């Protein structure tokens, strides 16, 4: 093969290899769960209302059987996103609509409400400081920000409930619990949040799958200045 021929073969192979690498990085590695921005929703300084729901199965996407969180964005739409951008040093009023059944906690320590105003949550209108996950409906999920010491147990719906939601986003016509709590965001930074109930069905110890994948049972509280 001539010099020109060899050169073009090598360049062609190089382009293919680089293209493959770029496709791999951009297509598979970089994409992450989208961010929902709450910083401009309210005038600066006033509290931010954050409404989320936890569902027993998301019903769509690559893992339809997985449990997941969804968030209501400032325009009122439910988004399948777990990175929430909120302003710093601001009160967050958290409302969680819990559509999933519960069970005893792996560590009952997470049945105690921690880090919220008054260290309590409001469960269907009742003030709760400690929830016994071995009794009642058990705990379905928790909303916990370990580095900020915040943890809110989300009590489950009855396991014998008939009107359960199976495809997100769920509407309040389905059986659910409403949990409210509030806390104040610290300075800027990205704070991971997670669930402490091993709710990854079918994975050993329940901590695989949705528990171990960003966008389902874990995300970031992106506190912006």
């Amino acid at each position, binding site marked *: 093969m001539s010099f020109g021929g060899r050169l073009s073969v090598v360049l062609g192979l190089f382009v293919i290899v680089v293209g493959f690498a770029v496709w791999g990085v951009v297509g598979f590695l970089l994409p992450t769960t989208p961010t929902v921005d709450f910083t401009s929703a309210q005038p600066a300084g006033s509290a931010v209302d954050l409404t989320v729901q936890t569902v027993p199965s998301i019903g769509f996407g690559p893992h339809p059987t997985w449990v997941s969180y969804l968030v209501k964005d400032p325009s009122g739409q439910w988004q399948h996103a777990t990175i929430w951008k909120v302003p710093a040093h601001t009160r967050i009023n958290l409302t969680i609509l819990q559509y999933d059944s*519960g*069970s*005893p*906690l*792996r*560590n*009952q*320590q997470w*049945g*105690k409400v*921690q880090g919220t105003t008054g260290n309590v949550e409001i469960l269907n209108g009742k003030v709760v*400081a*400690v929830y*016994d*996950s*071995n009794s009642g409906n*058990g705990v*379905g999920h928790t909303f*916990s920000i*370990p*580095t900020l*010491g915040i943890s809110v147990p989300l009590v489950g719906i009855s396991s014998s409930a008939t009107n359960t939601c199976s495809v997100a986003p769920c509407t309040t016509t389905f059986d659910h619990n409403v949990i409210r709590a509030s806390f104040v965001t610290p300075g800027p930074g990205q704070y*991971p949040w*997670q669930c*402490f*109930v*091993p*709710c*990854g*069905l*079918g*994975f*050993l*110890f*329940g*901590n695989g799958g949705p*528990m*171990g*994948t*960003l966008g389902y049972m*874990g995300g970031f509280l992106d506190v912006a200045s």
Partner: protein
Amino acid sequence: MSPDEPTTHEADSSAAGPMVTQGNTHGKEPSHLWRMVAIWAVLAVILDPLFYIFVGPHVPPGTMTSTAEENQFDFNVLFLVALPVMLAIWVYMAYSLITWRASRKGVAEPVGGAAAKASLGVQVGWIVTTTVLVLGAFVFGTVELIVNNGSGGGEGPNPVWTPTSATILPVQVIGQQWKFTYRYPTFGGFESSQLIVPVDTTIAFHVTSLDVIHSFWAYQLSIKADANPQQDNVAYTTTKELGSFTVRCSELCGLWHGAMYNYGSVVPKAQFMAWAKSTEVKNAANTKLLPPFAYTYVPDANGADGGYYPDNVDPYSNAEVYGATPGKSK
């Protein structure tokens, strides 16, 4: 001119070329080895004490606890021995690369004579010296390990070298995906996310896990013990100074391994007692719901129908069942 140097094949070949070099032929050969030893000695004598005086006291992990002090000391001793060893090799390499270069570009000049002989004495000397250094390091490390009650490393459920202090404060470290929590058995077994320990106290950390393998690394306390499921890994230390310390998980345990850290404090004894007693009272409602304190726990694998094994009503191990009421199936 270089003398005829008989080679092993000299007998057969005609006119052996007198081109086998053996160093400087003009006058006495400078003693390269003594020069190298001198350079090395000067560097070692200067750098070792410099390290000991200026760097040594600041070497991690610091002096907050007995184990931190001891591990800092061990590191310094090893470094003080390692530095001259490294200097020796580097000085030798630098000297030889500068001094013994091929003079004629592009031509390979054979080196024969005394320079090509492999002295048996050098080889034996090397082997003996390295063996002595290495065995010395072993003895030193073992003595330090024994004398320091395990040096802050996890010794498993049956530690061999234990402190003789009269009162040891047990603190249980529970690793779970993805946070460490701490239980204080001598204060009613309350569980807390905060790690607060008193100063001037011998502490026994009992590290265990509820799911996968984590590792409890209290950096300034110089404690590192893997958290294994259904195993109690014990590590000892004695606190000496007040201050705050960092705890990081140092065994990859899943998605949030990088976020699995918290801070702790070493506080005066009175402050610790006050905190422990008040937290015991504050958490009493939840402590009642926690399983009784045990050194290992077998969580209900089916905690949320989340495992794929059948309900763990009769656990395989004798340990306490952590999450489910014993005997009650889900």
